[in-house]
């Protein structure tokens, strides 16, 4: 027998309680992994989509909650394109629209011939021929979801569009976009002359500090707008922030629940094992060793729960990301660092839940327990 096997014997001797506590830790860590992973997925999807289309900065309506609800004038793009340090500007109209099957799709529209179109990696077909053509280019993910290919027709904005091209991308967001000419989208959504944002491509010879200076100068020149470089935009994006805040809030509740579960388990264990603890003290176990045993038992549960919770969290996040409502929008981003953080959190859960019950053992009077008083 070793202290480790003694702790395992103690846990095995109350299997239902141990399993219930383990389940609560798995739930907490699984929630943490899934929610934070999905929230980070939102951020990374957005960032990779912007990077893939070669956008260095985004211009949107000052004070708008997010890019979809922002409204700016399409003509702003021409003025921005002439500003120093800007090599190209393209107006964009973005809409999240429902599909007939209950799912949703993001539709983006750019002027035909503008730089976002040029960055697309066509695997089949071609780009829209004119600003007025009812033609759509789909990402490979969208094409697969709709079950269509070049030459087929799909309905967007209650209007049939011909699929003229399929594009591949490393960005899950682009793979799942539907892209149409700007003028067509403006007409069908009653937003003639309007855009939700302007994509800016800055002069390629600029270094990071020069780009910051360019953006700062643009902000002065266009005071009624919000201008952000793409990385900063992702961090301040309302949707991403809400997802992040929600995920963290729910994860904190789940983590707190796990702390209470460990606390309850170890408190009950200490009460039930008063005799064992008293006899350990009577035979010369130091209080610190007894406290250590209680903490160790909690740590076994929390570490096992942490590891299993990581597995469960990954599975849940992957499952959620494939559901119809968010498919193609969010790809969970679960890094090794996040897994390490989760297991570390589970260790803290174990310690936080067990430290008070463990210290309760110090307050026990072995003599009164052993004498049955």
């Amino acid at each position, binding site marked *: *027998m*070793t*202290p480790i096997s*003694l702790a395992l*014997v*103690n846990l*095995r*001797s109350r299997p239902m309680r141990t399993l219930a506590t383990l389940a609560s830790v798995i739930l907490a860590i699984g929630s943490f992994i899934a929610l934070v992973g999905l929230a980070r997925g939102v951020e990374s999807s957005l960032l990779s989509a912007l990077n893939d289309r070669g956008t260095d900065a985004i211009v949107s309506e000052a004070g708008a909650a997010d890019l979809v609800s922002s409204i700016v004038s399409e003509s702003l793009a021409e003025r921005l394109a002439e500003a120093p340090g800007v090599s190209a500007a393209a107006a964009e109209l973005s809409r999240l629209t429902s599909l007939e099957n209950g799912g949703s799709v993001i539709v983006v529209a750019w002027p035909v011939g503008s730089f976002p179109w040029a960055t697309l990696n066509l695997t089949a077909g071609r780009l829209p021929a004119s600003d007025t053509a009812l033609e759509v280019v789909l990402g490979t993910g969208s094409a697969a979801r709709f079950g269509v290919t070049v030459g087929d027709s799909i309905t967007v904005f209650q209007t049939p569009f011909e699929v003229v091209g399929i594009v591949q991308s490393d960005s899950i967001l682009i793979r799942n976009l539907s892209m149409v000419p700007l003028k067509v989208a403006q007409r069908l959504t009653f937003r003639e002359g309007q855009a939700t944002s302007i994509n800016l491509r800055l002069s390629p010879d600029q270094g990071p500090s020069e780009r910051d200076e360019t953006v700062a100068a643009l902000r002065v020149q266009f005071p009624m707008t919000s201008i952000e470089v793409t990385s900063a935009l992702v961090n301040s994006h309302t949707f991403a922030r809400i997802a992040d805040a929600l995920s963290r809030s729910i994860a904190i509740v789940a983590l707190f629940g796990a702390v209470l579960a460990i606390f309850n388990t170890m408190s009950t264990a200490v009460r039930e094992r008063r*005799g*064992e603890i*008293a*006899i*350990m*003290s*009577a*035979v*010369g*176990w*130091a*209080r610190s*060793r007894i406290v250590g045993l209680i903490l160790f038992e909690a740590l076994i549960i929390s570490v096992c729960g942490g590891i299993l919770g990581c597995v469960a969290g990954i599975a849940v996040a992957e499952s959620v990301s494939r559901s119809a409502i968010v498919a193609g929008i969010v790809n969970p981003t679960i890094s090794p660092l996040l897994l390490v953080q989760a297991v570390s959190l589970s260790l803290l859960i174990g310690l936080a839940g067990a430290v008070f019950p463990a210290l309760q053992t110090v307050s026990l*009077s*072995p*003599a009164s327990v*052993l*004498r*049955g008083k």
Partner: protein
Amino acid sequence: MTRAGSGNLPAAVDARGLVKRFPAQQTPALDHLDFCVGSGEMVAIVGPSGSGKSTLLYALSGLIALDAGTVSVNGQTPDRPAAWTLLRRTAIGLVFQEDWLIPTLTAGQNIELPMLGAAIDKSARVRRVRSLLADVNGSELFDRRPASLSGGERQRVAVARGLANMPRILLADEPTGELDTANSRAIIDLLKRLRAKKGLTVIIVTHDLQVAEACDRQFLVVDGRGTDQVIVKEHAG
């Protein structure tokens, strides 16, 4: 006030002026009590229920804090709980009326338990457990759980556990209190044999006349709640 003597033997336990008050009791459980046991002695502490004899035993093992007085064990006078813990790990073994065996552990593991608190490697622990079980005529009990043992077997395992860290002093609180006559006799014979074999000092709290008579001498604790009267009497064995 009288003080128990131990003849010419060097003192294994020397308690002086012990005072212990419990919050719920108006009179002290121990009232300036002196008690001395020579090395290798086997002494019975006897007295009526509530006289303070078990309190005395727990005081001698450091399991209760005294209000006044000192206890020296093998010449050491521990003054902190940690020092008492160390003494219980090295010099004092304890046996209780209830065996207090941990039900989820085997008999062997229960005996091994005190050794986990000491720096003894695993193979040495197992060897010692088997040796102790042989000493208490319980070699066959090694892998058995307490629930499958008889009362006498359980108490023999508890005695073996009390000796796990090879103490020089064994304190037993009513070790035969829950046993029938035959098992009581067996436990006392066992304690006498172990005392002879290992040179133990044995102090037994008992209300069993048979047990008391088997000891070298009896130490009577009567109504420890006196004031300035003699409250402890020593009887020849």
